[in-house]
């Protein structure tokens, strides 16, 4: 009996941990429930976002305050990635096309996690290749780190043979409302149709 005690303790601990995870999941699910306002104003809403100071593709300073007044679709990525990042930006461009006249109410924002290689000049050449007016942002490594921290975005350099590197990074498209509040998010698996559908509801 006494020998079973540690085992039972572990079982209880595992169950408790399971409940905690389920609870967190339920909380997230509720927060992200499809309300007209999305997660804006909820606890989760205020946990994502925050102040940043970066420069755009023309070398102009852009802060979080400059994003107010329009909806923003924010994606962190890097231009040396020809596979996933263009896919996300293209999905955004297609989704925006489906918004019709409301398209101008949404501003796509691409924030690099690779400031070392992504200078304003590189960003400019990159985003002009897409069929959407994308605001592309970079900065010093510290400035980019601060922006990423606010959006809970993880990124790390992954060295490859020959001195090259790729970037591991959180792949999330954040929807921020015109007051700069986190409202909804999409993953790289969200289709342009899903993104458009959700945006239409939010903009209604």
């Amino acid at each position, binding site marked *: 009996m006494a020998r079973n005690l540690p085992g039972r303790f572990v079982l209880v601990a595992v169950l408790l941990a399971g409940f905690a995870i389920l609870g967190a999941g339920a909380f997230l699910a509720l927060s992200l429930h499809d309300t007209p306002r999305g997660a804006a104003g909820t606890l989760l809403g205020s946990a994502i976002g925050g102040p940043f100071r970066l420069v755009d593709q023309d070398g102009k300073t852009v802060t979080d305050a400059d994003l107010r007044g329009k909806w923003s679709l924010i994606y962190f990525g890097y231009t040396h990635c*020809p596979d996933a990042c263009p896919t996300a930006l293209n999905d955004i*461009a297609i989704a925006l096309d489906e918004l019709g006249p409301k398209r101008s109410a949404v501003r796509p924002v691409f924030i690099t996690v690779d400031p070392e290689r992504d200078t304003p000049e590189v960003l400019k050449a990159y985003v002009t290749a897409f069929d959407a007016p994308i605001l592309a942002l970079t900065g010093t490594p510290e400035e980019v780190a601060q922006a990423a921290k606010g959006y809970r975005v993880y990124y790390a350099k*992954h060295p490859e*043979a020959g001195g090259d590197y790729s970037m591991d990074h959180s792949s999330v498209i954040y929807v921020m409302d015109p007051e700069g509040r986190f409202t909804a998010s999409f993953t790289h*698996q969200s289709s342009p149709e899903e993104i458009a559908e959700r945006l239409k509801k939010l903009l209604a």
Partner: protein
Amino acid sequence: MSIKFLAFAASLVFASAALAQTNQLQVNNAWARATPAKAENGVAYVTIQSPTADRLLSAASPVAKKAELHMMEMAGMVMKMRPLASLDIPAGQPVTLKPNGEHIMLMGLNGPLREGQSFPLTLTFEKAGTRTVTVAVEKPGAAGPAPQR
């Protein structure tokens, strides 16, 4: 041996050669994404089908200094790009490289890939040897190859 018989025998040889051709590993639907003016890296995708199990070992193209097999992996919400040593091609099952999965990274482009252009890509397989295909360049964010032109 009559001339007729020789002709018949020859036609059999040609016919079996033609049959063997379609029974070999094939690479189709090769496409790439156009790249911005200063991009250093590009990406190409193909569909590979082989009647017998094979393995894609390497890729090369004159448009880039090197071409590598890459795979996108997800660890939770974190996206990672990792080189692949090789890619298994199961017998009779087409393997389609596509965005957000396996792809051929063209590293150190000699110049931008422009929509509408095409370029050669050589793939080396463990058993089938090499195949050179013509890659069609699509839009920068294209999700797949354009319908047959």
